[in-house]
């Protein structure tokens, strides 16, 4: 009985840690309220523009790309989407050309590009992989945050629902959500994985 209790206790603590990790959000980003003029990318003047920042090696971001694919499938022609993959200058150029890149490229209506030295990510205030921001045709920020329910978990989530509502012209349930993904930048004090 004692052995069983010890086992159950150990296992439950372990499962708690797994869940706690899965639900630990990355550092929230702080995108500018208006489209940054310094960005090399111009926002669409007729459609809302969605920008997403991904760490090419982040395993959690696979779920983010999956959610983006779903969103694009339901919002054909309603949004201009750009996905930026971090490409540190000190690393080989193919560092960003991962399966995640290829999957993103396969999504109809999505433009994939490298974000050298994380320049664009910094301009848009992104901190964690999966950070997504939606600007309207005038360059005004409508939403920012993550579009997954937890680390690496796909499924219905608030970020996805909010973006879909905004693109359909419906009221948004939330203005921002937590981002579940790896840190885009080296930062000792972040404490995120």
């Amino acid at each position: 009985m004692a052995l069983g209790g010890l086992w159950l206790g150990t296992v439950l603590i372990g499962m708690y840690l797994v869940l706690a990790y899965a639900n630990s959000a990355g550092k929230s980003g702080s995108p500018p309220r208006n489209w940054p003029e310094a960005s090399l990318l111009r926002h669409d003047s007729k459609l809302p523009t969605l920008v997403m920042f991904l760490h090419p090696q982040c395993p959690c971001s696979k779920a983010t790309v999956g959610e983006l694919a779903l969103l694009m499938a339901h919002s054909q022609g309603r949004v201009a989407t750009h996905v930026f993959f971090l490409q540190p200058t000190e690393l080989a150029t193919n560092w960003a050309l991962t399966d995640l890149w290829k999957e993103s490229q396969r999504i109809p209506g999505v433009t994939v590009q490298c974000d050298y030295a994380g320049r664009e990510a910094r301009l848009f205030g992104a901190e964690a992989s999966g950070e997504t921001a939606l600007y309207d045709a005038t360059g005004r920020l409508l939403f920012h945050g993550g579009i997954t329910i937890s680390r690496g978990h796909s499924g219905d989530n608030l970020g996805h629902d909010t973006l879909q509502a905004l693109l359909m012209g419906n009221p948004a349930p939330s203005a921002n959500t937590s981002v579940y993904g790896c840190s885009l930048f080296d930062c000792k004090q972040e404490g995120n994985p």
Partner: protein
Amino acid sequence: MQPGSNRAEPSSSATNRRTAELFAEHQNGIYRRTDRMFAGLMLFQWVAGIAAALWISPRTWIGTQSRIHFHVFAAVVIGGAITSLPVWLAWKKPGHTITRHVIAIGQMLTSALLIHLTGGRIETHFHVFGSLAFLAIYRDWRVLVSATVVVAVDHFARGVFWPQSVFGVLTTSPWRWVEHAGWVVFEDFFLMISIRQSVKEMHLVSERQARLEAINESIEQQVQARTRELEQTHKQLVETSRQAGMAEVATNVLHNVGNVLNSINVSVGKLSDRLSKSNFGHVGKVAELMRERTADLGDFMTKDAKGRQLPSFLEQLAEQLGKENAFILNELGSLTKNVDHVKDIVAMQQSYSKVSGVTEIVKATELVEDALRMNASALTRHEVQFFREYDENLPDLNVEKHKVLQILVNLIRNAKYACDESGLEEKRLTMRVTNGSDKVRIVLIDNGIGIPAENLTRIFSYGFTTKKDGHGFGLHGGALSAREMGGSLSAQSDGLGKGAAFTLELPYKARNGAEGAIPL
């Protein structure tokens, strides 16, 4: 009597006890096998979880720096922890109730872990339902309850602490976990029906097996009893046959002695008749005449007419008395011979009347000759010619002499009877002794009435006979004796009127303790 009417019907209480035993045994076997299966499965799942973690999320990143992902540690440590106790219990305490419940809990926790390690894939959720189906192999509905409670508690707790992790939205109903657990209960419901039916069938099978065992045991007891009876009957039969065989020999002996006694009687009659008509009295008359004429014996012998005829009379008388003497001596010789014959027959019978079971080294041809000698008078009287065909260099036999003689005497007697029945003028009996591969073969071939095909095997059956005064012991007993000695007795015939051949095969060496079952 109806077949099996005396069969002991197994008592219901004993059958019920045995049913319960068999059911428990069967159930325990299933528990143990399933425990082992899950032990293997859980070890495999552990390894698969580690592989999934290494494949899906090997490292976590902070900018350009990386380290091993938490999922890899979780797969190794937590997966190992989940697997440890169920596998240990399956190894150390297979079949115990606690083992299968811990396995059920562990399996559901493994489902939860795998779901996390695979990024919450919908497909991995099938592991929960698959595991429930696997757990149903235990055929114990309580195990499903344990598993379902784990799923319900997991969803409830996560719904409370991290609602979005379970249901995807933060604004979910607090009772949503009931809906999720409900789907599990939905599957449980059908699995429990299946388990109930399986357990019922197991019980039926156990009950049938218990009844079958009880019936088998009863039959076994009856078989043993019948076997004992058969063994007893067999012993009696062998003894009866042996006695019958002895009687057969004795009858033959007496028959032959009777024949010789007839000859003796005839000789005695002839002697009496001859002696009653003997001229021996004339010798006295001559002596009396000579005493009367003693005074003038010379004149009487020379001058008297009677006296002169007296010498020639005495010569004729002496001649006749000499003939009588020769006749009597001849008859006495015959008498002596016949008496010796009787003595031989009696001595032979005595030599074969030894205790059964004692084997002796003998020559097959000597046994055949003895048997012929014992039947010689009868064969002669019935005008049956007998011929001998003996191989040279025949090996000695180590057999019970009296048994072989009984068989041969009986076969010769049967041959004589068959020859008589055939009505042929030329009756022939051939005694052939040959050397087989490991046996001596004695074949008696007659040209008698023969044996119909349908009787070729029946003639060896107990009580079967074609003779008016037969009792059906002879051939049956002969076959039994031959079998006991490790040999065989068989018959061949081309049918009625075509004679018959009886073959007695005897091994060179005595059969060790040979007394097998006699399938006759």
